[in-house]
């Protein structure tokens, strides 16, 4: 069975900027696939290449095994949920949802019925007569979703769909989107800069940086085994210990990552056991997060590391700004990184 989406050496340049630089990837049918990266990393351009709004300067884009390079958006079996929702302001909700069927010349009765079905799917049955301006952000989001799904696309593209929603609504919509994807068994390609969103929803994640895929892996794989310093920092918020400090601590001049929640405090006087690495540091900042707290500490050579622990500490101790501490972590939790 061919992949739902395949990129073969795809590049897209804007002037001198390589927005997408020789990207290869394949997305399996029915997969929830996330494109994750900071702004300007090329993830949205990739989405637009799949939708057909952009054409590659070189390379091929395949949908379900067929080369669609050069095929316009209206001839692709792919639909998009836009970041700004892009609801037509001169049509009511039902007309917006039915638009995809209308332009394909479906009978009025079918348009009406399918639009009602789609609105029921997103729990907006009674909103058909409203104008888009009368909807809240979350409702607009659902209408955009219903409208994109009415053509029964093989692939649904979502461009930071939850970016404009507040935190509570965003979390609710994450669960809803995931359930919807399971129910419809459609391939979802989800663009986001929020690593939490990508990790919690996607089956696989492609992490983008400067137009290239840094790592393509499952959420667990990305978190547990980041390949590069960029992925370790961006996805796990991990401490990256550069080779100079690494050599001093471990004896090897090899950059490694250690996640903040794997670190703990030791009093400066106690002796360190085997199998752990320890490092003297000074607390420079504490952020209280409720269940946990996040300490920023500075090591003697000036590197800043983060430590995340429940508060109060196991022994009821707490470390304030200015305290001298000893931080320790198990050797087997360190992830060696490739030099990039």
């Amino acid at each position, binding site marked *: 069975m061919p992949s739902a989406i395949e990129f073969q050496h795809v590049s897209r340049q804007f002037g001198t900027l390589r927005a997408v630089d020789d990207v290869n990837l394949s997305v399996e049918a029915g997969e929830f696939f996330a494109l994750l990266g900071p702004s300007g990393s090329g993830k949205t351009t990739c989405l637009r290449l799949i939708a057909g*709004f952009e054409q590659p300067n070189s390379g091929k884009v395949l949908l379900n095994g067929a080369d669609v390079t050069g095929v316009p958006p209206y001839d692709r079996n792919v639909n998009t949920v836009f970041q700004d929702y892009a609801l037509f302001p001169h049509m009511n909700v039902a007309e917006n949802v039915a638009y995809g069927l209308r332009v394909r010349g479906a009978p009025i009765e079918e348009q009406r019925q399918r639009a009602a079905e789609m609105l029921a799917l997103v729990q907006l049955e009674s909103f058909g007569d409203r104008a888009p301006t009368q909807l809240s952000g979350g409702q607009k989001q659902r209408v955009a979703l219903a409208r994109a799904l009415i053509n029964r696309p093989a692939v649904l593209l979502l461009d930071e769909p939850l970016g404009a929603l507040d935190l509570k609504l965003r979390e609710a919509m994450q669960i809803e989107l995931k359930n919807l994807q399971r129910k419809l068994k459609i391939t979802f390609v989800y663009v986001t800069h929020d690593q939490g969103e990508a990790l919690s929803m996607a089956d696989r994640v492609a992490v983008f940086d400067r137009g290239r895929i840094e790592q393509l892996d499952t959420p667990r794989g990305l978190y547990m085994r980041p390949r590069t310093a960029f992925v370790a920092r961006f996805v796990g918020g991990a401490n990256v210990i550069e080779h100079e400090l690494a050599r001093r601590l471990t004896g090897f001049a090899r950059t490694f990552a250690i996640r903040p929640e794997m670190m703990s405090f030791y009093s400066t006087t106690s002796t360190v056991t085997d199998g752990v690495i320890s490092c003297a540091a000074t607390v420079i900042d504490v952020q209280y997060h409720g269940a946990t707290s996040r300490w920023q500490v500075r090591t003697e050579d000036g590197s800043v590391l983060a430590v995340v622990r429940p508060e109060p500490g196991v022994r009821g101790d707490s470390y304030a700004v200015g305290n001298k501490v000893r931080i320790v972590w198990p050797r087997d939790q360190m992830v060696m990184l490739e030099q990039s």
Partner: protein
Amino acid sequence: MTSAVATAVPEFRRWARGLSTFFYRRSTFYLLLLLLPPLLWLGTVYLGSLFALLLQSFYAIDEFTATVVPKLTLETYRQLITHPANVDIILRTLAMAIAVTLACAVIAFPVANYMARYASPRMKAFFYVGVMLPMWTSYLVKVYAWRLILAKQGILNWGLTVVGLDGALETALTTPVIGGPSLASSYLGMFIVFVYMWLPFMILPLAAALERVPQSLIQASADLGARPRQTFWGVVLPLALPGLAAGSVFTFSLTLGDYIIPSVVGAPGYFIGMMVYQQQGTAGNIPLAAAFSVVPIVLIAIYLMLAKRMGAFDAL
């Protein structure tokens, strides 16, 4: 001496600061103060004259003494709509205004669309200046220049002959109603000049309206399967309607009211503007001139009503 200056400056600043605070706290009063001059102008001078015009049209002229009788009557309007010559003038002007408006809309759309959607910032600036540049030239100069361009020995005739299209021009000029002995003395020629003159007034509001249509709407339409033609009729045009309506009010009303173009270029038939000019000037029939002036106002009011009913302003 120096100390006097030194204290005078903070004194003034304190006073100015007090005034700012006063206006800040009483924002309604401040707004009223700012709006008073324009309101006086709009209310008294502009609406006042319009009202005076309306009032004049309900007076009539005494046939024997040729003086205006200041008594309310519908006599002038009766004269306006029962005289076949007057009705002819109104219909001729209306037909020209409709034709000019349609032509301006059709020509302006691609230009405005390019300016709003495809032009680079430099190109856009160039187009905006280019569209407005003709308006920096005297209106009279342009009209007389067009008469020369359209004349039988003019450059247009010559150019068409060179490219072998003189036959087409001949056919156009022998067509009844729009034709004539030459372009300069036909309604076709007048139409060309009108379209040239008012095109900027259509392009600018249309470009402004198209610029406000987000690119994502057009992409969403294509994404949902609409071909470019369907996207144009289903999304772009409906959303550009307010701009089209604004532009057409300009082209429509400017054509209805103009008296210079019809008197310099084109066939000898009268237009509303010429009638107003003649009636209040040589003929001295101010009430009839006023009644003729009311015609464009009524026509535009009807046009706006139709446009509103068609939903031209729904997307505002």
